[in-house]
Structure formats: structure tokens, C-alpha cells
């Protein structure tokens, strides 16, 4: 899925490089060769004569050189190559193979699929990849300015001698956050979403290709600061951790319920500022549990380190669970192999 929240795609960048389009596009040549490329790929084919060229992916695009919705341009330099069926040719390419030219009767086709099905499929792939490496992946979500990055830096400093760690940073622009993380010595990868308001599972999948996986350790995914959209996009994480700081309103869990509903843990950050602000911790917790009765809550300060012991203990426990699950799986596989 392209999740660029503006119309244009090609906005997403991982460490400054453009992210290839989600959809690849495949050609099968008559000799059986198959090649595929992303939609934003710019190319011109020069074909020998009598070269047959199927476009299974193109549906009813009638013209030969055609712009793709993504802005790519696909040009076939040779006009002699044949496509089965000329102008109405793609009609017969459907499973029925019976669409008569000229008879353009509309028909209904059932789809019955979730709109976010593609994202869900990418998320499932990420999840199994992370599980296979016994990585605890956490999706950190909050408003901008809640102190996510400061919290992350302090957490990494506390754990880096003990566990393999890695960070994926999501922001609309700049690599400032990834640079702050790398200064701790932990590998970090910056995803810039351009106009996009959230990370999606496809972007994270690409990031996993580029980042050394912290096997048996923790991967922190710092989402774009936004309490709305990231709630709906599963990245393949083990849990969403929502951060609410005491400089925000205690009623935020009710104003942005989807996020607090999707989270498993809420961290109330900046508690060192409680004497100076009007923030009712008990009310914030009650509101959050109204939308999510199972929500776990910890209070801490990323600048003083208050409450950090409990947060680190939570992380270690979750990681132990992830490892235990992986060990059980591997043991089951081993037992199966030995028995076979």
C-alpha cells in the first residue's frame, strides 16, 4: 500500500533513498522469461519483430506507451510486437476467456476484502520475520513532543551493554532523530514519510532489509508523532506503546481513543514536571482504561530516569516471552525432525 497521505507517491524515503513502489509489475515474454519491476521504474523496451509480449497486469490499458498512476512512464519502442487480441485484447485475458468484443455489459465482481488487507499481509510477513529472529518489536506512538526520542535514547543507554538493539525512526522530514539515536552507538534507520502521517508495514519491511536485525533483542520503531493514523496500521510489532506526557491534557485518551485502545502499554512521561503543571495522573489512567480496560500503565521521566527501573523490567519480561515462544517453536521443529 502506498500510504503517502498526499496524492503524490515517491515521497517516502528510507535514509534519503526513495522507497520503491509497493506494487511490482511483471512481464512475461513469449520465450518464458519473466521480469518484474516496480511501477515507478522508467524504461523503454526495444523489441525484435514478432516478439510477443503479454501484459497480465495491465488490464485494459489500450495505448502502448502509458503513464502509470504512480507517475512512471512505460514505453514500448517497437510497434510491431503483437499482443493477443489487439484493441479488445485484454478482454480474453480474464479467467472466463469469453468476453466478446463490443459487448460491454457491466458485471459485478465480488471482492469482499479488507481495505487494509495489503498492509495486514506485509505486517504478517514482518511479524514472522521478527519472531524467527526472536526480536521484540515495539511500535512507539504519541503526539509530537511527548518525549519519545529522549525516552528512547535513555532506554538504549540503559540496555545497550545488555541486549542487541536497533531503532527505526519515522518522521515526515529530516534524519535528526536517527542521528540522535546513532550517537548512542545503536544502529538506527530513518524513514521519512514525506506527506505521510504514519509508518506502514511495507515501509518497515524495507527498513528490516537494510537494518541489522537485533537477534534476541529489541527493535524500537518510533512512529511519526501523531495520535490518530498510526493506530490503524499494524507494522508487525509485538505491542504498541503509547506515550502521554504530563504537559499534554489528561483527557487525551478520550479525545484520541483509537490509539489508547490499540496500545498495550501507556507510559506517562515527564513526571518530573508534575509539580509545575495541572495534570491529573489518576484521571488520565482512568480515561485510558475506559477505552482499554487491559492497558498497562507506567509513569516515568525520560530526563531524570525516575520510574525507569519498572519500564526496563517490562521490556526484559516481554523479551523473555518472545524468546520463550521462539524456543518452544524451535524445540517443536527439532522434535518433529528427530521423530521423522
Amino acid at each position: 500500500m502506498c500510504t503517502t497521505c498526499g496524492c503524490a507517491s515517491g515521497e517516502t524515503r528510507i535514509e534519503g533513498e526513495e522507497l520503491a513502489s509497493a506494487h511490482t509489475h511483471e512481464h512475461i515474454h513469449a520465450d518464458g522469461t519473466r521480469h518484474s519491476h516496480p511501477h515507478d521504474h522508467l524504461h523503454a523496451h526495444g523489441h525484435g519483430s514478432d516478439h510477443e509480449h503479454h501484459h497480465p497486469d495491465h488490464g485494459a490499458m489500450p495505448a502502448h506507451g502509458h503513464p502509470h498512476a504512480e507517475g512512471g512512464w512505460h514505453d514500448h519502442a517497437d510497434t510491431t510486437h503483437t499482443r493477443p487480441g489487439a484493441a479488445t485484447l485484454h478482454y480474453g485475458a480474464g479467467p472466463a476467456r469469453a468476453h466478446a468484443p463490443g459487448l460491454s455489459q457491466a458485471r459485478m465482481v465480488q471482492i469482499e476484502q479488507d481495505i487494509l488487507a495489503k498492509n495486514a499481509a506485509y505486517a504478517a510477513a514482518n511479524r514472522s520475520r521478527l519472531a524467527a529472529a526472536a526480536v521484540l518489536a515495539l511500535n512507539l506512538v504519541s503526539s509530537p513532543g511527548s518525549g519519545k526520542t529522549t525516552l528512547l535514547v535513555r532506554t538504549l543507554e540503559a540496555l545497550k551493554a545488555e541486549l542487541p538493539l536497533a531503532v527505526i525512526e519515522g518522521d515526515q522530514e529530516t534524519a535528526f532523530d536517527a542521528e540522535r539515536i546513532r550517537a548512542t552507538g545503536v544502529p538506527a534507520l530513518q524513514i521519512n514519510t514525506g506527506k505521510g502521517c504514519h509508518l506502514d508495514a511495507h515501509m518497515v519491511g524495507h527498513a528490516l532489509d537494510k537494518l541489522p536485525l537485533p537477534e534476541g533483542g529489541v527493535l524500537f520503531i518510533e512512529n511519526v508523532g501523531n495520535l490518530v493514523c498510526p493506530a490503524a496500521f499494524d507494522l508487525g510489532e509485538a505491542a504498541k506503546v503509547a506515550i502521554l506526557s504530563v504537559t499534554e491534557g489528561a483527557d487525551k485518551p478520550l479525545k484520541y481513543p483509537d490509539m489508547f485502545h490499540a496500545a498495550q502499554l501507556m507510559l506517562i512521561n515527564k513526571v518530573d514536571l508534575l509539580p509545575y503543571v495541572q495534570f491529573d495522573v489518576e484521571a488520565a489512567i482512568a480515561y485510558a482504561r475506559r477505552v482499554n480496560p487491559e492497558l498497562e500503565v507506567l509513569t516515568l521521566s525520560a530526563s531524570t530516569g525516575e520510574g525507569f527501573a519498572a519500564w526496563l523490567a517490562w521490556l526484559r519480561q516481554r523479551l523473555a516471552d518472545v524468546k520463550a515462544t521462539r524456543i518452544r517453536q524451535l524445540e517443536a521443529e527439532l522434535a518433529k525432525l528427530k521423530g521423522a
Partner: protein
Amino acid sequence: MHEMALAEGVLQLVEDTARREGARRVQTVVLEIGALASVEVEALRFCFAAVTRDSLAAGAALEIQTVPGAGWCLPCGKRVPMRELHGACPNCGSYQVQPTAGTEMRVKEIAIE
């Protein structure tokens, strides 16, 4: 929220299906959107028109079927209507209501020619 990303998701499903079926054009797209799905239907219509331009679904009519919200209230032990996600039970006022319908976001079917 994120209606543009949803519209892109709809277009992908629609185009995949339309191409597979060898369609020349998509006439109508039928969606099923739950009342509790946090989707702004008007924003989705606007985004759909924007993302389908220059696609097989350009100019297609967008039909949105709304699914009313419902949930299971734990204290009442029965199914109750829900008007908002995370809202209170209309009978007892409790917030322990598990949504059972109305969170759908699905592409139901398309009319192609």
C-alpha cells in the same frame, strides 16, 4: 483519519480485481464501512476521486454501505447498539462494551465493463 491511505488501498484491490477480470473500465465500487470504523465518509469520497484519476476506476461511482455499530455489554450480558467506538452502554452506562459490528472497512464488490 488517513482517508488518503484508505483510498489507495481501495484502488489497489479494485485495480487488481479489474485487471484479473480483464475489465476495460470500473463503473461502480461498493464499500462497506462500519459506523465505528473511524472513517470520514466524505473525506474518503474526495480522496477516492483523487486517487482514481488516470486509473481503470476513473470516474467510477462510489457506493458506501454503512454498517451500524453494535457491541456486547459485559455487565448487561447482551448485545447493545453502539453509536461510537469506546462509548458507553446505552442501558447501563458501563464502558465494558466489546464492539461486535460496525468496525468493517471492506471493498465488497465492483461493477466492471
